[in-house]
């Protein structure tokens, strides 16, 4: 029974890994192909960071999202990627929660840049909270199935 449960979890973890991975990969890509100033304007509207910090962040964040997403989907450094993914989603949840608490006039979260689906802050808060929990669960997944990690450590 215990072995069966473990097998179910290890296969389930593959699909769970693809959820935050694909969301991060798509959102990072859609932001990375646009000028950094566009994301900087979105970050500015959250009224959290000083202007001097926003522009470097707007350059770095899409690439972090894209790479972490890609690593999660392909299962490369899976547990570390899951940890970074959890950190990203935790910070998104915090940013969105404070925007709702302060009644900031945000029509959409800007999570996917200008080219993606326009989610309201409430919708994206829910999505990010779920993906945060998923990412935390993935940290527990040792030796993940269907992953590059497994392929790298297997005999050639």
């Amino acid at each position, binding site marked *: 029974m215990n072995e069966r449960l473990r097998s179910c979890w290890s296969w389930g973890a593959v699909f769970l890994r693809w959820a935050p991975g694909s969301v991060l990969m798509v959102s990072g*890509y859609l932001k*990375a*192909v*646009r*000028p*950094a*100033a*566009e994301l*900087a*304007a979105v970050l*500015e509207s959250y009224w959290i960071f000083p*202007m*001097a910090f926003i*522009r470097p962040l707007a350059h770095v964040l899409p*690439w972090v999202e*894209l*790479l972490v997403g*890609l*690593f999660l989907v*392909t299962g*490369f*450094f899976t547990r570390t990627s899951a940890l970074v993914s959890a950190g990203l989603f935790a910070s998104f949840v915090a940013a969105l929660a404070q925007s709702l608490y302060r009644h900031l006039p945000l029509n959409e979260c800007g999570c996917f840049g*200008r080219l993606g689906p326009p989610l309201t802050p409430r919708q994206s808060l829910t999505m990010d909270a779920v993906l945060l929990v998923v990412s935390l669960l993935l940290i527990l997944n040792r*030796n993940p199935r269907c992953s*590059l990690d*497994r392929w*790298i*450590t*297997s*005999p050639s």
Partner: protein
Amino acid sequence: MVGVKFLEKMTPHTLLKRRLSVGTLLVSLAISAVALGRRVPVLSSDAPPYRRLGMASAPITIREYSDFQCPRCADGHPDLQALYARHPKDVQLVFHHMPLRQHKWAVWAARASEAAGRQGKFWEFAARLYETQKEWSTAEDAKPLLKAYAESLGLKGDLFMKDMESPAVEKIVTDERTRADALGIPATPTFLIKDRMLVGDTQLKAFGERFVLEELNK
């Protein structure tokens, strides 16, 4: 379990080599995908002369994509003028219309500024529109107010109205809006300092001067 057992036998050097190869491949894949997806705006220089301020030989062109009814555009306008005033020999300003659909009188204000431009007072009229934004943007009918502003600047009222309502001016504004969308201008106001983009008045305030100085020092 097989993988874990094998790990014990695999040398750290082989493992590192494999990880490095796969990592490099994935990062290269991401960089290539982004490079392919990036659209580089091809900037047209077809703004009429009256929407240009400064010397044509100036090494830096700052393009402003703006909507006269947008409050943040009104906030950014004095900052842009101040930036130009600090570098009159090095900077040329070019104004591009980007009237937003949700602003009732934005298209008419853009058309009015074109009409004022045809009488040689585009920039004065633009400044007046930003100063009086709250007044005309909430009016039931903004056209008489626009005419009054034009006349207060010494423009011929009848000619101004004729130009403002002409299909040719309407086409200019519509075409500019379409071009701004095609270029991927994300919001108003957007400023392009050469090819570097600033979105919003706050970014202009924070980085405008620095970008100009950096471009001058190149």
